[in-house]
């Protein structure tokens, strides 16, 4: 694994924004004084006339984005997940969600992998918050190539999208030209005993866990669920029927996120199978190096291995 390339999804976001700006005049980008961190600064440099910084005023930014979208612009509005989904929730809900305007809320620094800044900046609630807004599409790409494709898919979709991005450089495992279809999960690895449905940086952890499990004779299917909403019900139910057990894995509170979405589908199918969730166990984060925190909060491959064994015991 020594030669693995690591790139943060926020870097892929910034690069793709610049490309989209070259291709489309309707692309407008906004930030709230975090352009260097969210990588919208790359767009600012390339297309300064179509970049608007509201300063530290996330709610105002979201409502201005709505006004721009109402006049035909495709707007990407960026901040950290905490201040986009958190502080500006009601502006997103009422100014963007209710009129179904064409604004892409691109929120970086999601999850505990923010690292040293600590709990106030580690948003593990954003998927849950955004999932309750009617019509909101939620994308959570797993690596840089997928993030690029997801940004393009969001730009091509007419309506509000919440795009979850990370601060941490994460291993690249997708091909550079990987495709992205909103609402479709992808089987990354076949398996017959259990399915790990993962999202974001947990997809890579799930792939490592599957290798470990294979060595122990457990055949693990891995699904990359890069769209949290609308969730790919068909794929979830197929995996449940074919492997008989499911573990979800997300860098998010176990309440409200991917695990909740998958559980809802399974329970309402009338054919539920044993399921366990890997995620932040309803607690706040803390300061520390990102990789240490991912392990501390039970989000690394060894923890997924343990959850898989636990769910198999329930079969």
């Amino acid at each position: 694994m020594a030669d693995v390339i690591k790139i943060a999804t926020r870097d892929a976001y910034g690069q793709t924004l610049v490309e989209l700006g070259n291709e489309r005049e309707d692309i407008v980008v906004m930030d709230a004084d975090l352009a260097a961190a969210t990588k919208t600064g790359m767009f600012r440099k390339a297309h300064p006339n179509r970049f608007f910084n509201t300063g530290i005023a996330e709610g105002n930014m979201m409502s201005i984005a709505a006004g721009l979208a109402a006049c035909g612009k495709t707007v990407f509005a960026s901040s950290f997940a905490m201040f986009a989904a958190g502080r500006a929730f009601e502006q997103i809900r009422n100014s963007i969600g209710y009129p179904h305007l064409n604004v892409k809320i691109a929120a970086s620094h999601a999850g505990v992998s923010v690292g040293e800044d600590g709990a106030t900046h580690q948003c593990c609630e954003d998927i849950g918050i955004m999932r309750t807004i009617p019509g909101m599409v939620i994308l959570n790409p797993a690596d840089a190539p997928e993030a690029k494709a997801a940004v393009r898919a969001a730009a091509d979709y007419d309506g509000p999208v919440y795009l979850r991005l990370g601060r941490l450089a994460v291993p690249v495992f997708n091909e550079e030209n990987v495709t992205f279809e909103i609402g479709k999960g992808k089987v990354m690895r076949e398996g017959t005993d259990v399915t790990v449905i993962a999202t974001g940086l947990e997809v890579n952890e799930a792939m490592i866990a599957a290798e470990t499990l294979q060595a122990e004779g457990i055949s693990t299917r891995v699904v990359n669920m890069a769209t949290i909403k609308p969730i790919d019900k068909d794929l979830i139910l197929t995996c449940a029927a074919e492997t008989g057990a499911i573990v979800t894995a997300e860098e998010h509170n176990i309440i409200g996120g991917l695990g909740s979405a998958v559980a809802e589908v399974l329970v309402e199918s009338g054919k539920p199978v044993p399921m366990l969730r890997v995620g932040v166990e309803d607690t706040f984060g803390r300061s520390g190096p990102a990789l240490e925190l991912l392990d501390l909060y039970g989000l690394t491959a060894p923890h997924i291995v343990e959850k898989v064994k636990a769910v198999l015991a329930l079969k």
Partner: protein
Amino acid sequence: MDAITRKELEIVAAKIRLAIIEGTFHAKSGHPGGSLSIAEDMAYLYWKEMNIDPADPKWAGRDRFVLSKGHAAPALYGALAHRGFFPVERIPTLRKTDSILQGHPDMKHIPGVDMSSGSLGQGISCAVGMALAGKLDGADYRVYTILGDGEIGEGQVWEAAMFAAAKKLDNLTVIVDNNNLQIDGTVEEVNSPYPIPEKFAAFGFHVIEIDGNDLDQIEAAFAEARTIQGKPTCIVQKTVKGKGVSFMENQCNWHGAAHNKEQYDIAMAELTARLQELEG
């Protein structure tokens, strides 16, 4: 006034006031007080000031209006109906389950509504976004928004004001409807926003103070706003909440209450008499 006379605008304002009472009475709810205070604004904006086409409500080159104090929707609906965006017969369906006329403005379903609003403080930001889009496109449309004096307690209003001035949005006109009353009392009793003109001036606006129930002063203010370059304009207008209905004027309890049949009959009689007097 040319083209459309002051008297004609007063007739329109009277019809809007009748629509406000008609709608909220049948809905058995709504916000008639703060709707009545902006009837002259609505008449002037939709019959004189704004470049709009009721036959093509989404026309890209139109002037835009955002009712940031979205609870005054009955006034907006009255204007849109009488201006021909939808039939006047729909006014009594306000707030009904099968009606397009939502309690607060809904741009997805109501012809002529440029922005959904109602959560206070957000409409001005949306209007700023529209004005910004106009500048970006080199378009010559103008954007108007009306805020309540209670509404400006929302911090977002000042975030939007700061941004509008920083971006020199001289195509934006903000109207603050200073009827002096909010739900819990006078604006001073609740948490005084005064002095309002000085605050907007400090935030970089060109400020005009008028009587917002006087059409001549409204006309002069909007004309002055058009001449201002490099900064947005804020019209701070003194108005009477409940204007036009004797027992409603300056009464806080008519912010969010509808009439019973007896009150409705009196209000409609007063407003109808005013309309007949104007129509001679």
